[in-house]
């Protein structure tokens, strides 16, 4: 995986993530590393990571936690992506299904639009695209069911 000073293009990152997940038998560890890269790039823009995570109204809680790294980010964001993309027979679901066949460039664009990600989060969008490209949409949706958003490896 390239470091921050040698950032891959979004397409390269998505393809790296996809191939490494496949090579590692479905482990999301390569994606967590890629998310770390994407998070670092996004935070360089001056914005906090939490700004990417849609929420309900302002909440205060008994024990609220925040995303701090790639894995904790995906623990939270994976559910949100699933909620957007995995509604069977929705227009978006169909669009993503076709984009998976068309290659990572198209898939990144769809993810960026579907998740309303800002341009500075392009490597995060690319990582999500890599995960979906590797697993396929059906397996991705199965993998990220609410009880198992953080797969154990």
């Amino acid at each position: 995986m390239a470091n921050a000073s040698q950032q891959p293009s979004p397409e390269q990152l998505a393809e790296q993530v996809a191939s490494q997940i496949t090579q590692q038998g479905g482990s999301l560890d390569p994606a967590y590393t890629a998310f770390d890269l994407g998070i670092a790039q996004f935070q360089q823009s001056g914005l906090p990571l939490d700004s990417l995570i849609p929420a309900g109204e302002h909440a205060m809680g008994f024990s609220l936690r925040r995303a701090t790294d790639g894995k904790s980010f995906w623990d939270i964001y994976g559910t949100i992506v699933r909620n957007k993309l995995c509604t069977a027979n929705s227009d978006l679901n169909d669009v993503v299904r076709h984009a998976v066949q068309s290659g990572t460039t198209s898939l990144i664009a769809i993810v960026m639009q579907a998740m309303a990600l800002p341009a500075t989060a392009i490597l995060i969008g690319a990582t999500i695209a890599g995960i979906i490209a590797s697993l396929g949409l059906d397996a991705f949706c199965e993998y990220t069911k609410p009880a198992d958003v953080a797969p154990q490896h």
Partner: protein
Amino acid sequence: MSLRNTNKLFESAAYLPASLQLEFQAQQLWDHLSERSQACIRIAMHKTQPGPPTFREMWGHVWAGDSAITTDFAALSMDEKAEVLGFFTFQIHELTHHFDFLTTPYGANFQGKLFREYLAFQRFAPLFLREVVPHGNRYRERFVDYDPSARDPRPPDASDASHTSLQPDASGAPDAFHPSDAFLAAWKEVHDIVATLEALGDGSMLPHKQNMVAGWGGNNSTIQLFRQPVHPITVRGFFNTVTTADHPDWYLRPSTIFETRAVVHCLMWILKLFGGDERAREPLSIYLDSFYGPTMVGPDYTFVLDVIATGWGSTFSDFVRTAPMPSLRQFLMLTDASCWYALQAPPPMPDASAVRSSPIVRLMHALRFFNDAIADRRAYPTSVAVLMAMDSAQQAAAFELTGIDSILAYSAGFVQYLQQHKLQQVRDPILQKHFDRVLGVQHRRLAERVPHGYISYSGMPEDGHPVRGLRNENEVDDLAFDSYVADQRVRNWFSFRYNFLYRFPDAATIAASLKDFFGDAAPRVSPADPA
């Protein structure tokens, strides 16, 4: 089911200060507790009837004198003990937030800003829909960072393919945007309120880095709070606060005060359950380690406790493990009192600057007073006596502090003014009813506090449980969670505004929501109201 999984359910417990709701899946939590935890809870509640626990069952028993409870609790594993303690305290935590937002001058300031923000959006939204939405695809930022004078602000059309481009600005230079004077005036009115709320921590995250500047008015000197060095920063040009080297992505803010009080109240309740003596030590430590360990939550929950503990050369968790129990109880009471003092920061008053309205300034004054009082071995008969002494301390004038009587009277009058003179401007009857409820409760609670100053049995509850501090039916009617359920439209508004301000909702959602809440008819021209 491990504590880790049960913790995820406790994490889902949330208080929503804008709509005044407690969000929690009670049955789901119960189902996820271990069988041994469930059995211990039943014993502790003396529960004989089916159905949800009553108030008396939940909080009507002291465990220390009941060997059936203490024996059963002692036999649990550490995780099971944490589950049981979490079960009996999470509502105390959220109730503390609820009472603090409805009974304090800072709560009046916060809710008053949400109300004024809504009115400002009512003026601004139709202009945004008319001048920005139809024109293209350049609005791709958080509203809190949006400045129409800085760049082309037009939002993306959901069907516009360029929004999906990997090079989002490759479609060419934006057309010039020429906002009307009415647009700019309405935007400024919204923005000034939004930026203030953001600085106060409403977004639950740091502002954009460009809005945080080291130092206070050019003074970068490190400040000592007890033995903890902290660094001054200024947020959004007005909010003076501090950060630490240990937590560079955080600053001291009102939510720190709210969370400190909530944690303290839960600890005081556990102390009471176990007799207020050595028997409470292990449960207190388990509780802290299980829910508030250093890597588990952000600094808001324990920063103030750890700062005060530096006065004893300790961290708070070590202090809990080693301090004499009377000292621990006094520590908790004085921490609670210091934070209560901070929340008496009023809405902006005409005879003072923003300094008087800062809960952080009041908290820092309280902590330094507290530190000096310990060093000088000054004794005070009650917590309220300490707070009165803080008001008359020599340093108080530099912070523009004024007496609690005038703060409470002003705050009660402030919300009454909004309710009587501004509420009718809200065109949506459902939102109007909500703000009427909020402002009405705040007026009654603050007005009732005026003769009593800092004294509040629910604000500084002796045993940590705010509900046990309620003294009459009117208080129950105003403050019980089940006495008010916000309409779903109210919830939808606060959810939308939170995402619009601090996140990146898609353009179609922005346009549809603004139209739904405010319509797209041109607003009547009226001057911005400074209220």
